[in-house]
């Protein structure tokens, strides 16, 4: 039986009924990984032994009828989540030898519910990139066409779920790193409200923007696992003081009479005709389901990219200072003195994109530039957030493309950082405002998938998933899988 074809909830049902064991399910994924990942490079580490022993433990619990809520379901974790005793590299040479001494809250929560870790997925170095080409462990390929990129920074998570090497994967999103690869790989990816998912043990890129989430094959699958990852964590001071939300019970409620906002600033932009066509078709689906379409204005939305490229590098310049070769991770050979140790460790341990952002951030925070750059960016960030607050007074969700187009060829944008940064033009605003956003497949072009983005009001993940699920209940874009 091709267990990997089943949805996550069907897999859970099968495990609970005893139709198959977690060991069978896990082995099937492990076999697929060893068979197919050679061409994709979506995993940095495959934790085969650990996975099989976790699976066996789950099977034992099922036998004794004292199983956990998600017992025996396999999952892949982005290599940004610390996992005790397992290599946690963040896609960097700097941490290429780093075995985490503790586990992230996200890992712990899913582990306690019985989920089986298949391995750690490849990613752009320190989550900086939109094509998964900045990883020290080599680029990840898009299963739809291996000459194309899977998107980034959670490219490994998207690629492995798309190729059905894992039923679902954790991911993180600072400016679009869940939604953009989900869009480019034909998947459902959700970034919840800032503070929903604990950042403890999730290696920091830009603390005020980073948020954990999942990349899945459907909104239904995503809801099941995002729910289990969420909830207040006393170890993360920015975590919201809210219990684990119920994200599944609202999925099947009709969206009739609800309002979808279309930001005119996005649609005024020059948009590829095939993108516009797919979005218009999706809008028609929603109309047919009884939703009302409203044009809205997010007047400051076009400031988002420049705001982001001040704040994210500024925070990263401090967050990445700890990688100095003193306590763990990469250390240069034979340092002359402490200055040399710092300088050469960082020179040799970081890749070009990471260095570029550290430099930008350091510059933006420097005496004399702070007010003009960082402080101004923070003020503008508030303006963007205010636009959303205003918009959500009249609409339930905001719809747009997730990305300017389908995937692009490996190497196509690597020499033009600004062109690469434009990948996130639709996704960044939700991070600046701390709002939940998701991407679901809504079309294809030249054999490559394309996604649309839905952004919701603060804490309204449930409504977002409801919109996504009702679309997926009436279309089959999310059912299309690459031939690999």
């Amino acid at each position, binding site marked *: 039986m091709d267990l990997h074809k089943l949805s996550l909830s069907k897999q859970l049902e099968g495990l609970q009924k005893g139709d198959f064991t977690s060991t069978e399910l896990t082995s099937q994924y492990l076999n697929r990984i060893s068979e197919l990942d050679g061409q994709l490079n979506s995993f940095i580490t495959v934790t085969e032994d650990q996975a099989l022993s976790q699976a066996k433990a789950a099977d034992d619990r099922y036998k004794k009828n004292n199983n956990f809520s998600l017992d025996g379901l396999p999952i892949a974790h982005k290599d940004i989540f610390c996992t005790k005793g397992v290599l946690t590299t963040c896609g960097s040479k700097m941490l290429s030898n780093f075995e985490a001494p503790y586990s992230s809250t996200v890992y712990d929560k899913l582990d306690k519910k019985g989920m089986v870790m298949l391995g750690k997925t490849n990613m752009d170095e320190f989550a900086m990139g939109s094509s998964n080409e900045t990883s020290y462990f080599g680029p990840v390929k898009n299963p739809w066409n291996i000459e194309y990129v899977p998107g980034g920074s959670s490219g490994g998570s998207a690629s492995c779920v798309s190729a059905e090497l894992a039923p679902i994967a954790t991911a993180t999103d600072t400016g679009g790193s869940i939604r953009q690869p989900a869009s480019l790989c034909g998947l459902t990816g959700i970034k919840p409200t800032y503070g929903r998912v604990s950042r403890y043990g999730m290696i920091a890129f830009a603390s005020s923007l980073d948020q954990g989430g999942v990349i899945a094959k459907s909104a239904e699958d995503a809801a099941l696992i995002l729910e289990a990852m969420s909830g207040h964590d006393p170890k993360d001071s920015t975590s919201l003081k809210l219990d684990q939300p119920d994200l599944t019970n609202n999925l099947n409620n009709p969206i009739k009479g609800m309002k979808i906002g279309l930001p005119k600033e996005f649609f005024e932009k020059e948009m590829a005709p095939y993108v516009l066509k797919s979005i218009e078709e999706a809008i028609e689906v929603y109309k047919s389901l009884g939703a009302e379409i409203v044009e809205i204005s997010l007047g400051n939305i076009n400031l988002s990219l420049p705001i982001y490229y001040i704040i994210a590098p500024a925070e990263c310049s401090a967050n990445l200072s700890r990688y100095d070769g003193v*306590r763990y991770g990469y250390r240069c050979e034979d340092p002359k003195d402490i200055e040399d140790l710092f300088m050469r460790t960082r020179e040799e341990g970081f890749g070009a994109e990471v260095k570029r952002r550290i430099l930008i951030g350091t510059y933006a925070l420097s005496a004399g530039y702070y007010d003009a750059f960082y402080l101004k960016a923070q003020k503008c960030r508030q303006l963007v957030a205010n636009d959303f607050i205003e918009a959500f007074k009249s609409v339930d969700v905001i719809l747009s493309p997730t990305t300017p187009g389908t995937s692009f060829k490996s190497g196509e944008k690597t020499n033009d950082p600004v062109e690469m940064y434009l990948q996130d033009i639709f996704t960044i605003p939700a991070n600046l405002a701390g709002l939940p956003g998701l991407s679901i497949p809504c079309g294809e072009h030249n054999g490559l998938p394309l996604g649309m983005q839905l952004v919701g009001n603060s804490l309204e993940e449930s409504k977002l998933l409801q919109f996504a699920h009702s679309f997926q209940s009436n279309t089959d874009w999310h059912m299309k899988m690459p031939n690999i």
Partner: protein
Amino acid sequence: MKNYSEDWEAVIGLEIHVQLSTKSKLFSGASTDFGALPNTQACNIDLAMPGVLPVLNEEVLKMAVKLGKALNAEINSPTSFARKNYFYPDSPKGYQISQMDKPIVENGYLDIETENGGKRIGITRAHLEEDAGKSLHDDFEGQSGIDLNRAGTPLLEIVSEPEINTPKEAVAYLKSIHSIIRYLEISDGNMAEGSMRCDANVSVRKIGEEKLGTRTETKNVNSFRFVEKAIQYEIERQIHEIESGNKITQETRLYDSQVNTTRPMRSKEFANDYRYFPEPDLLPVNLEKEFIEEVLATMPEMPTEKKERFVSEFSLSQYDADLLAADKDIAEFFEEVTKISNSPKLSANWIMGELSAELNNENLNIKESKVSSNKLGQLISRIEDGTISGKIAKDIFEKIWTTGKEVDDIIKEEGLEQVTDDKEIELMIDEVIENNPQQLEQYRSGKDRLFGFFVGQVMKASQGKANPKQVNDILKSKLEK
């Protein structure tokens, strides 16, 4: 003790780092105990492992609120944290979490006593920050070791206005802060262990000049005495430089107590652009009104209040009250002694006299005193009730110090009760007069000074036990006959 010409004045501001005596660190659960084996008290957060996050230890908020009150300052709410970026091997994150725009304590003052009377010193701010680790250079050939036990220990940095003008004022201010933090029990204030550290910003200018001179910051001064000496040295050095036609460089200097000089740190040892920005891992902290009121309800009596009470309640002199109240432990000891002795004045004299001499001798603090407050109180009460004389009491004090015995046991065992029976004293006096006819004759012919000789002889005869007042009275009447 100005060693420079009268037309110069110094302008001094102090930055005092106070290590808060919390059980765990500012942003982690690791212990803050001093003296543990290197790196045994550094958890993943202190080690700045990838992915860890700070969580504020709320105990420090209470401590800071108390200090703010004692410094007559405003408490900022919300108060927020900032990152101060610099690379140093004992700074694990590559930045220190500190406070910039909204320090928890702001705009206060402290009244100090100076040679020229009272003076008010403004307090700019007091902010929370985490301590760094330590670099160890001695035990590793050609390498350095890093001990991160201290990394993340909570500090309050108290910044004064540049309103101090002499080294003595600086010490008075520092001692006053020391007294306050000890009273509030927010720090042990141990300068030798680094629980209280002082950096001095010093500049000089001609008296009457409004513009401030270029200042230097002198670091690493770890005793009251060194603070005075370091500032004195720095003032004289700056005046000498200027008078020799040189300019003062704005720089950080290190005090070397071995040779009593300050010298510039290598320029690399201090960064100049810390690139402060708001700490995104910590939300601004709101201090609710009820929280502040609850904390203030636990404020102890402060040194100034205690001093005033000692004067009004116990009729102590300003001077005695000031000395006793400056140190919380001494003040408490004094009150315990007085409770038993019922004689505040005598208790104060004994504590500042005999007791403090013994403590100094053996380099002990008052909590380590070998004569407890209880025993000292009893000893004084035995003087008061006439059982023993003050002179005998000194001997008994010595005996308690060495043996730890009870006051009354020593008196009984050694038969040291004072002789207060008039008859017995008369007999002794008669014998003395009889044995010294020559002195008697001289006395009676006008040599009054010989009275002391007779007193001495009587006391000697009684082995010091005769009640001196009775001896005086009876002797006087006998000699006059």
